[in-house]
């Protein structure tokens, strides 16, 4: 039996960045008309493989074949010409040009492009708007529409649904199915296993830069033959129980709560945040749930001192507080873990330097970190199990390790109230669990935590209480232990529950 050559295949692809081996040997094979999942924990080498396939990086060894012919991409333009279009996590659109100018630069057929824009309900998008004026979800869809309009053999999608709402994601899947019917393929990189189970045909799982062992020694990993737990096992390499009441991220819930560490009264910022009131008590993790663009970004800006409210009051430890800048907020113990890790980090500095950043305000003579504080940096590295192989430059760490550094910084600096904005976006399961466990531990040690998350499944697992935001207002509050994805989604859309619960 002679099978037709796969549309896209890699054999033994390897890549090192200096001493750090990102990819040891990756084999992947994508057939015509197949939706392929590329899976792996953080640092397993997914991003590196995607960069090689997209022509951003060149491989040190191994070969890439498109349609049975070996290819060598030196620039992203080469990959596009060969029929591989990639949508990266950060949309590859120029912020200071208009949408129309961006599309003009990319030499795509305008009428096809308009079709795909209409497909995503973006036909009324103002093409003369500057890219930097548009929200992230719109940009990702424009980027995807542009990639689809190139009508590539293979569409590479890196965490495409991370910033999208449920029905936007649905449209994306429908697009993939349509292309599949035409014999075109896609490679999907995502941490959302439910999506993989629904839409993907085959999967490649990477672990430590290599192909992970397939369950039951299967010759290829067909999604319909496995379940989510088997995928997770293959990714982690060890059996992982689903979280139970005894697992660290959940245990410790229900302990006595202290006084309110942060109280918000009628907080308003023009029309974007309106009359928001709530409090976070010592020892409590309060979840915040909202669809994209409901004012949650602005609320976090207000709480962390990046913007001043137009009305309303903030109480920190029971005393009224006014933040003129994040400096004031940090001094009063209210610290932020922002949604974009790169905003918070000094990419070219070492892990230690980044962790010690909050101490720079209290440097001693000769700019030395106080001797008493130095063990705290080491403690933070141990406590968070940060992978320090690439410790000399934070930008070379994987996304999950970078996020740990951002959180670890406040362990070093000290805080009372922790504001976390979507800390687990685009992070693998193991690191997510580490972060949940850490948050719970911090809470039980006397921290108050406000956690915004785009992954609803996290809420019952991590939080004590959950607030739902819609159109700038807090519209609902639920007991996290009893909240379900559907109850949260219903509230997040601004709808009442049908039956009283």
């Amino acid at each position, binding site marked *: 039996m002679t099978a037709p050559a796969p549309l896209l295949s890699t054999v033994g692809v390897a890549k090192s960045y200096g001493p750090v081996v990102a990819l040891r040997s990756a084999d992947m094979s994508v057939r015509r008309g197949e939706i392929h999942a590329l899976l792996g924990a953080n640092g397993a080498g997914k991003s590196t493989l995607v960069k090689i396939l*997209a022509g*951003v990086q060149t491989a040190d060894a191994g070969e890439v074949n498109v349609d049975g012919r070996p290819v060598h991409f030196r*620039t*992203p*333009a080469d990959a*596009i010409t060969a029929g591989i279009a*990639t949508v*990266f996590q*950060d*949309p*590859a*659109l*120029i*912020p*200071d*040009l208009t949408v129309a*100018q*961006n599309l*003009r*630069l*990319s*030499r795509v057929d305008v009428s096809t492009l308009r079709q795909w824009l209409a497909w*995503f*309900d*973006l036909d*009324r*998008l*103002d093409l*003369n*708007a500057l890219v930097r*004026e*548009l*929200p992230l*979800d*719109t940009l990702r*869809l424009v980027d995807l529409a542009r990639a689809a309009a190139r009508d590539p053999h293979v569409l590479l999608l890196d965490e495409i649904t991370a910033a999208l*709402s*449920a*029905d*936007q994601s649905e449209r994306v899947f429908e697009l993939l199915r349509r292309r599949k019917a035409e014999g075109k393929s896609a490679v999907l990189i995502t941490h959302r296993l439910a999506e993989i189970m629904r839409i993907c045909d085959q999967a490649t799982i990477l672990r430590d830069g290599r192909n992970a062992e397939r369950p039951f020694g299967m010759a290829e990993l067909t999604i319909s033959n496995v379940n989510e737990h088997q995928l997770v096992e293959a990714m982690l390499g060890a059996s992982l129980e689903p979280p139970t009441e005894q697992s660290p991220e959940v245990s410790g819930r229900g302990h006595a709560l202290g006084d309110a560490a942060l109280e918000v009264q009628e907080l308003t910022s023009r*029309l*974007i945040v309106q009359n928001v009131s709530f409090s976070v008590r010592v020892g409590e993790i309060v979840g915040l749930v909202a*669809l*994209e*663009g*409901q*004012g949650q970004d602005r609320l976090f800006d207000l709480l962390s001192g990046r913007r001043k409210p137009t009305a309303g009051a903030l109480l920190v430890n029971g005393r009224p507080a006014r933040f003129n800048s994040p400096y004031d907020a940090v001094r009063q113990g209210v610290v932020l873990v922002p949604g974009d890790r790169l905003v918070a980090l000094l990419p070219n500095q070492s892990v230690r330097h980044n962790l010690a950043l909050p101490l720079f305000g209290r440097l001693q003579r000769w700019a030395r970190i106080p001797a008493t504080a130095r063990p705290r940096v080491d403690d933070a590295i141990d406590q968070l199990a940060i992978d320090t192989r690439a410790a000399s430059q934070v930008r070379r760490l994987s996304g999950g390790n970078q996020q740990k550094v951002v959180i670890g910084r406040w362990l070093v600096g000290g805080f009372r109230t922790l504001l976390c904005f979507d800390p687990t976006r685009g992070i693998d399961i193991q690191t997510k669990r580490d972060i949940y466990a850490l948050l719970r531990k911090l809470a039980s040690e006397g921290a108050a935590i406000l956690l915004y998350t785009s992954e609803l499944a996290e809420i019952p697992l991590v939080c004590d209480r959950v607030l739902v935001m819609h*159109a*700038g207002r807090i519209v609902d509050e639920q007991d996290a232990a009893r909240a379900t994805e559907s109850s949260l989604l219903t509230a997040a*859309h601004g709808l009442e529950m049908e039956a009283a619960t």
Partner: protein
Amino acid sequence: MTGAEHPFGAARMQPFGRRVRVRNGWMVGVWLLLGALLLWYSTLIPVFGPFQITSISKNSLPLVYLAIGQAIIVIAGGIDLSLGALLLLSNVIAARFMDGQPVGVVVVIAIALIAALALLNALTGYVITLSGVPDIVVTLATSYIWSGLALWILPSPGGGTAPEMRWLFTGSTSGIGGSSWPPILMMLIPCAVIAIWARRTRQGLTLYAVGSNKTAARLSGLDVRRAKIVSYAIGGGMAALAGLATVAITGTGDPRFSVGTNATLNSVAAVVLGGIALTGGIGNPFGVVATAVILVMLNPILIAMGVNSNNAQVIQGVLIAGVMMVGGLVALLRERAS
């Protein structure tokens, strides 16, 4: 939840006129400032007529050309400290080889000179992309090379050019008085061509793209290296044009022209005042024309006001800083209002 139903953040159609005003506000502002300064200057001096207009426009030419070239390079994410030295190089080559030649030869030399310096500076751009050494370092180095070459080609002031050449840039064959139309047209035509090219062609937009976000530009499949090289080529060509203008205005070549050394920094000042972000990717080169003329006019205005020429420099600096701060304030207020 679809994009169109987003309560916040989704793109709402803005009225076209308002958008044009907001996006080009800075450019319109500096042209209005130039108009106001001209009006004021005309009341300061006893006689204001065609002679003054000719004088201002022709004396602005070198800096205008240099600033436009600098603007293109800055938009593409670079900065060129060698433009003033290239101006000198062009000036001495033109003065030495055009002296006493018939007009046909002079035109050939002029065109060849523009092409040669464009190529030379493209090479600088190529070296920058190849080596990864920052623009500011490489062009600082080349600026010494070009000024050294200029001294070597023409060790002492001298040379000249054809009367027709002088008429083209100054409006008179002797370089004194004359019609104001040739210098004004020589100012506006090349600048308009470059400004429109930058905003309306794919290659021009690529320069903006590369200056705005190099990574995103590369990921979109654009040729980042070529964009840088093209921007430096344009800068070199404009510096050559500026050198030709100085020969035409002064009638001689001089490798030690103070205009050459000051011109580099003045071109950067004009670019910044013209609303072009030094970080790249933002701004319209047409605004730079107005700010270059303003910078040239400031000195005679201050002298007409009776300001001591030593103090004039201080005032010039304060004015530049002041204008930039007002610009920053406007941007801040606009952001607050949104």
